[in-house]
């Protein structure tokens, strides 16, 4: 029978102590919740609102509808250059970083390697070097005149490059640099590889399969969740890149590395156009959201979660 007698029927009544504990729990969570609401989501909402206004540092905001978005897509000289540079960098860095990280992880996962902990540390260290410090280091290595790379190329009798100093090589150079800091995804790959069942690998051995067959048909499906996660995070990080263009190239040469985040910074803090910069930020958000959805749509189903639901 429903709806008769005590309304709490069917639901165990919470004891006073439990209720107090729950209240205390919420109280302890409150600072964090307030922080998220006001300092994170509050800013999201605020930036969305001002993206429809002409808000600048100089005065009050007037509602301008979709004008900022239309101007960005149709008139902004830098916008499409910036998008092109960012997309190139994001996808280039994902491919370079993930391949490098996976390759190193596979090598380090080999049972016969001695001093694994040492090598793991060595390969992980670049990812904890402060961004500006690593930028300065790479600026030296990229220097066409006295840098390490051109010195090595000269030694091998190969043609040299202008690296970050030429329009067509600037983004590929920064992609190369991103692969250097692949420590974080490498560690995740390592943990993924540790979970690859030896039984399955032995089964391939018994069936006469080689290393390549094992890698393609066992290892890749088994580590697909981490592969998926790392790729997604890599694309997001690629779109969010800022320090390299700010410190190393200032968006140059000829705007070749004017990444979107740098453009947002410039529109907001040099041109003082907060509304316009917010519209740009939301366009980036939408592009990223679409990328993420596409990746989920096409690759999400191919990820193997060991029989468990996603």
């Amino acid at each position, binding site marked *: 029978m429903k709806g008769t007698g005590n309304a709490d029927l069917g639901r165990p009544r919470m004891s006073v102590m439990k209720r107090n504990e729950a209240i205390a729990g919420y109280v302890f969570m409150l600072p964090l919740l307030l922080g998220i609401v006001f300092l994170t989501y509050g800013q999201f909402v605020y930036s969305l609102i001002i993206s429809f206004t002409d808000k600048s540092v100089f005065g009050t905001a007037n509602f301008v509808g979709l004008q900022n978005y239309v101007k960005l897509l149709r008139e902004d000289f830098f916008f499409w250059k910036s998008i092109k540079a960012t997309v190139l960098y994001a996808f280039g860095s994902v491919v370079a970083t993930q391949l490098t990280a996976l390759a190193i992880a596979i090598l380090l996962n080999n049972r016969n390697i001695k001093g694994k902990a040492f090598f793991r540390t060595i390969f992980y260290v670049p990812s904890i070097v402060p961004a500006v410090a690593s930028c300065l280091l790479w600026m030296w290595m990229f220097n066409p005149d006295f840098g390490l790379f051109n010195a090595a190329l000269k030694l091998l009798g190969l043609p040299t490059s202008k690296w970050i100093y030429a329009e067509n090589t600037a983004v590929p150079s920064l992609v190369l640099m991103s692969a250097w800091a692949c420590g974080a995804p490498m560690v995740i790959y390592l943990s993924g590889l540790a979970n690859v069942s030896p039984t399955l690998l032995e089964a391939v051995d018994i069936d006469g399969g080689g290393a390549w067959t094992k890698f393609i048909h066992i290892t890749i499906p088994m580590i697909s969740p981490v592969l998926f996660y790392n790729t997604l995070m890599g694309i997001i990080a690629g779109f969010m890149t800022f320090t390299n263009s700010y410190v190393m190239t200032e968006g140059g040469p000829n705007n070749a590395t004017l990444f979107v985040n740098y453009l947002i910074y410039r529109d907001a*803090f040099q041109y003082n156009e907060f509304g316009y910069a917010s519209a740009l930020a939301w366009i980036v958000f939408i592009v990223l959201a679409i990328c993420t959805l596409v990746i989920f749509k096409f690759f999400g189903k191919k990820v193997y979660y060991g029989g468990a639901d996603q």
Partner: protein
Amino acid sequence: MKKLLSILLALSLLLMLIPAMAEEPITLTFSSWGDAAEKAILEGALARFTEETGINVEYLYTPEDYVTKMTTMAAANELPDVGYLSEPIVVQWANEGMLKDLTPALESGNVDAKMDSNKFIDKNGKVVGVSVADEVVMIFYNPTYFDQMGVAYPPSKAEDAWTWEEFVDVCRQLTVDVNGKHPGEEGFDPDNIKTYAVKMDDRDYVYESFLYSNDTGLFTEDGKGIALYEDPAVEVFQAIADLVNVEHVMPSAEDAANNMDMSACFLSNSCAMVVSGQWNFQSMAIAAEEDGITYDVGVLPYFKAPKTANTGTPVVVFRDTKHYDEALLLASYIMNTDFVMDFINSGLWMPVSEDWYTDEALIDKWMTEGVHPAHYREACIDWALNNTHPSAYFTYGCIQQLEDLYIPALDNVLLGTETAKDAMEGIRGELDKVMADYLASIS
């Protein structure tokens, strides 16, 4: 009893209000960037201001990302009372009402007469900023190297300045590859140059100096159009790029010589001349003392007439000040030449008052042995007085936007992958748009 309690409460409230009613001492905020030495001198100046006026000053020192900091403070309506502001954005900020009129300070008698070339003027003709220092552009050179090569020093007087062709000719004589050959000689190796004749800061003040010398600038003569894509400007940009790619007398952007500071260039004989700003005398004097390098100074070569652009960070009074009169007084102190004599004597700054360029006693006070070299008087003091064309950012509020267009566009010109004509034509529409938006914003 109730009545007594009410009276007591009222009395205690009154007692609490008394301290609040007492006049609070005024505290101004002053913001600047600068290195440790500049910070120390400014702190001294501010302490003296407090001692003499009784007005406290809170010093907001922001050595990095200053404009970002000011923008954020402006957004929060918490701008300081007085401070430095980056040159390219001063007039833009003023036109938007962010800066106060400094005219009362200039007319107060507390400040000596400042040169017009160092005043920032807003759309209404008001003075909204005055440079704390004047800075002009010139040729620094290594006389020891010139002696070794048997080449005459760069002229120190504007009337004797090299034409661009003469300059290029001298550059060929000064440039030497690893085999001792000069550009134009049989077997000259442009990929292995030991000493370049010249390097230039790839910055606005250098470009503007040569644009003015070719009787042009960023803007057309009527101030309503862009001149950067017109023939005289294109000629200047192409001539500078040709020094790198055709004449091989100037290092390209990525060349080691281009990335050395001036003293290292002279010490290693990587470059014989450097086109840069006056402020370098401070570091050159230190290098001369520590490393024994030699340096002197000459005037810039010219296209049609010898000219230099000038620059100079201004002190401004910000919109949000609640103590305008006191802020003006503080601005006057910062503008006072006596306050900044240490900077002037060290070679970092030049005075902004015309008297200092014409009065021999003041010039003696300014010139410092071991810092200001033999030809400083003609090639710097007289040069600044007679041949300065104020940089565009003293009067225009769209310089940052223009620089973000034309300076990146010059990257490929300097690399030799695009002509100046093509590069400027490529951004012509955008330049015109910036100008149209700017004119609309001030009309």
